[in-house]
């Protein structure tokens, strides 16, 4: 993984954020490199949190870009981003952004420091989550628990009915 991507990923936890930030960075750098005058992230159509992120981004790394290598470098970055295998997490409810970040941090603490997650929503899970990574999936949802214990549940209902 390239240093710039590593740096981008450091504070970016979801794949959508990663793509967005890569695009934002590209846009910001393209404006900076090819437009006359100083360019501030505020002037660009970039989200607020990304603006903050850009402002806090490692400037040294940004300085490695120039008009000559800009497109090539970003092509590499984009290709690397495409190769990123995210951990897809199906959640039953919508998480606020803060919780998403915490979730990303938790995932990284458990599995890999550069692991990117992809949040999807599936209300039918009821509770818990369903994890999909690299083609395999593991369902830790309440729905799965009910399905696995269907027989027992029906027996219990039967007992209740007889009682």
């Amino acid at each position, binding site marked *: 993984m390239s240093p710039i991507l590593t740096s981008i990923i450091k504070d970016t936890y979801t794949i959508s954020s990663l793509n967005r930030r890569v695009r934002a960075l590209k846009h910001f750098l393209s404006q900076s490199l090819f437009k006359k005058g100083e360019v501030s992230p505020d002037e660009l159509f970039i989200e607020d949190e990304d603006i903050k992120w850009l402002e806090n981004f490692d400037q040294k790394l940004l300085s490695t870009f120039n008009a000559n290598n800009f497109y090539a470098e970003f092509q590499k970055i984009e290709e690397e981003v495409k190769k990123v295998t995210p951990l897809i997490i199906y959640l039953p409810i919508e998480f606020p952004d803060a919780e998403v970040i915490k979730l990303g941090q938790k995932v990284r603490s458990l599995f890999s420091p550069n692991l990117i997650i992809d949040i999807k929503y599936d209300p039918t899970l009821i509770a*818990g989550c369903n994890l999909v990574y690299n083609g395999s999936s593991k369902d830790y949802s309440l729905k799965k628990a009910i399905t696995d214990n269907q027989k027992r549940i029906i027996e219990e209902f039967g007992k209740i009915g007889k009682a």
Partner: protein
Amino acid sequence: MLPGILLASTLILLVLFLLERRKNQQLIKKQQGEVIEKAQEKSYELLHQAIAHSQNVYSEIEKEEGEILQKSLQDSTALQQEFENKFNNELVSFKNSIDASQVEYQKYLEDLKRRTEEAQIRNQDFIRAQIDQVFENFEQKLSDFLLETEQRSVTSIDLELKAARQLIETYKTQQLKLIDENIVAMLEKTLSLVLSKKLTLKDNVDLIYEALEKAKVEKFIV
């Protein structure tokens, strides 16, 4: 010449023959006349004799006839008397025999009547017994038939009931199966409705973190 001679000789012979014949005939006639006369005389004589004889015979016959008639009259009277006697006797005996026959016939009729009555009574008894037997058989067969019908009805009703029960059982099983299949779906739906309101964000987060911990333990991501 010769034929002429022969012819002439023949003619001569013929003439001679005819002359002879004529002569003979005349002679015969003469003889016959004599004979006839004689015969006639003889016959007249015989006839006279016969008549006399027959008159004798006739008178004798008349005489005998009278005697016979006399005798027969006497005989017939006796015979008649005898016949009458015999007839009366026969009549009496016939009458007696008829009376006896009548009596016997009367007896026979009475006996026949008695036997007929007895036979009638026996026949009536027999017919009565037959009818009773027929009724008895009929009652028995009817009772058997009713019993059999009842059994068949009961059996068929039992079969119908069994089939109906089986159908109900099958339906019940199918419905229970449907309920079992749906109960889980209902439970899921209920839980999703209830827990979405009852479970807080923290609870959800905790559950997810728990799932991630489990995934780490199970080495889901290597």
